[in-house]
């Protein structure tokens, strides 16, 4: 059994694939329903004569809700699952099993990183398909081409997240430390995003880019973030391979 098949079996038997799929599909199905029911939920129960008037909810609102949940819950789930998968040296005797057989660190890192990232992207695709279906049923048609383009940007964001985790997993020796460090950096990036000068360059810009592509004219500055995320993801993976090659058990 080679490393690629091993990683596919890992994704399935550890239930990590199911956790990812469940999280994304729940977001995809649940958020449009919440958006649809929002006006009724807000005005439900005793209100002391106050009636809240909300603008009519649209497909864009539903997709914005989905994008927000993917950026928060989706990112958190992917970071935790990725850390649990990508910490190579958490158990020294198990690490010895792999390291005495896969002498080149790239053979240790790439199959696990790529299969995990592919699993996250598959879950994302399932979540967005669910969101598209639910939104179409409840609100009417969503432009499919724009949704597909937005999904591509979301996919790049999750590639960046898994790359960040693999970089920390090459330094940390526990899943908790790797996940915690990666989430801390993602939060710091989100805070930096409030500085308007650099916000368009940060990969976090991609995490909620789905509505921007559906809403015409608001995605003009996204390409800076695409460039930074793509280059950053590649650099982080190379750094992880380099670091694992140098690190002793």
């Amino acid at each position, binding site marked *: 059994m080679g490393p690629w098949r091993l990683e596919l079996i890992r994704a399935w038997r550890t239930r990590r694939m199911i956790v990812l799929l469940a999280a994304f599909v729940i977001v995809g199905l649940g958020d449009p329903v919440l958006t649809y029911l929002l006006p009724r939920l807000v005005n439900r129960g005793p209100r002391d004569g106050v009636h809240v008037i909300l603008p009519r909810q649209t497909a864009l609102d539903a997709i914005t809700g989905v994008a927000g949940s993917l950026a928060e819950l989706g990112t958190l789930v992917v970071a935790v699952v990725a850390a649990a998968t990508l910490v190579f040296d958490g158990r020294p005797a198990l690490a*010895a099993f792999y390291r005495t057989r896969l002498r080149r660190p790239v053979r240790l890192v790439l199959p696990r990183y790529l299969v995990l990232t592919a699993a996250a992207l598959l879950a994302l695709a399932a979540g967005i398909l669910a969101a598209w279906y639910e939104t179409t049923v409840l609100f009417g048609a969503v432009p499919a081409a724009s949704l597909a383009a937005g999904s591509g940007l979301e996919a790049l964001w999750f590639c960046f997240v898994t790359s960040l985790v693999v970089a920390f997993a090459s330094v940390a020796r526990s899943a908790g430390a790797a996940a915690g460090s990666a989430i801390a950096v993602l939060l710091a990036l989100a805070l930096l995003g409030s500085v308007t000068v650099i916000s368009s360059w940060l990969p976090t810009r991609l995490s909620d880019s789905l509505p921007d592509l559906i809403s015409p004219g608001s995605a003009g500055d996204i390409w800076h973030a695409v460039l930074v995320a793509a280059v950053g993801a590649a650099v982080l993976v190379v750094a992880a391979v380099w670091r694992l090659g140098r690190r002793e058990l």
Partner: protein
Amino acid sequence: MSALRTQGLAKAYGRTQALAGIDLDVPAGAVYGLIGPNGSGKTTALEILAGLRRPGAGQIRLAMPQDRVAYAPDAPEFEPWLTAAEVVDVAAGLLGRPRDQAAVADILRRVGLADAARRRVGGFSRGMRSRLGLAAAMIGGPLLLLADEPAAALDPGGRLEVLELLAGLASPDPADPEGPVTVIVSSHDLGDIERICGRIAVMARGRLVYQGGVGELLAQASPALRVVVRPPAGTLLAALSAAPWAGSVTQVSPGELRIDVTDQDEAERRLPAVLADCGARLIEVGRAGPSLQDIFFDLTGTGPSRAPAEAMAGT
């Protein structure tokens, strides 16, 4: 010919000198024992040889490529969601060896895990994991097998099986063009080492305090045998006194003889015939004087006769 030679191999963890320049010379096809108290540097040495740690100084010369060096740690771990057969299959696959289910089944049978081949490893006992660790190490066709305390977690029967398995790996097989496997085994159990190892290295505080044959080491310190037969032992005493390999023979108590030997090898070969010729009813035979354990305590500066503080300092 040496399978492995090291020169001045050293390793420090911070201020602690784990290895202080050791020169190992392991002959090809040998079962080579690495013994020493806890903290003497055995595991560090094995991990460096396995390529898991980098030496701080020194050289390693292997007579084979690094991917033909296998390592079985003292407490092996595997993915709990794999079956035993899958673990061995993965071990071969990661080395790039072709898939061979018959070889996997054969290895599992040899380590005594044939019945557990389809069970997930998560439910294995430590002893079963030790056996599986050996199976995973053996599958890729290694030419040098590094086994760290391979029998530590096993019951007496299991110990014997595993030790015989390791000794068997190093036995020449005319059908194998690559020759026998060289085995380096570390152990705390001197009986295990004495049973299967022809050569040993004794380590203490990161240094090599002895390297050579087990027989040579024992011969240096215990050139005497103790024979206990059912009394009377007069005829045997006379026969032994006349043997050219016996320096002197004394009767310590009725039926118990101490033989100071001049030629250890000859004594081990000839003694059974003398016993048989005299019709002696043998109860016990062994070494008189210090055992390998006593020599080990002497060399490493440890042992129960030492004051606890001193013994602790030595570990």
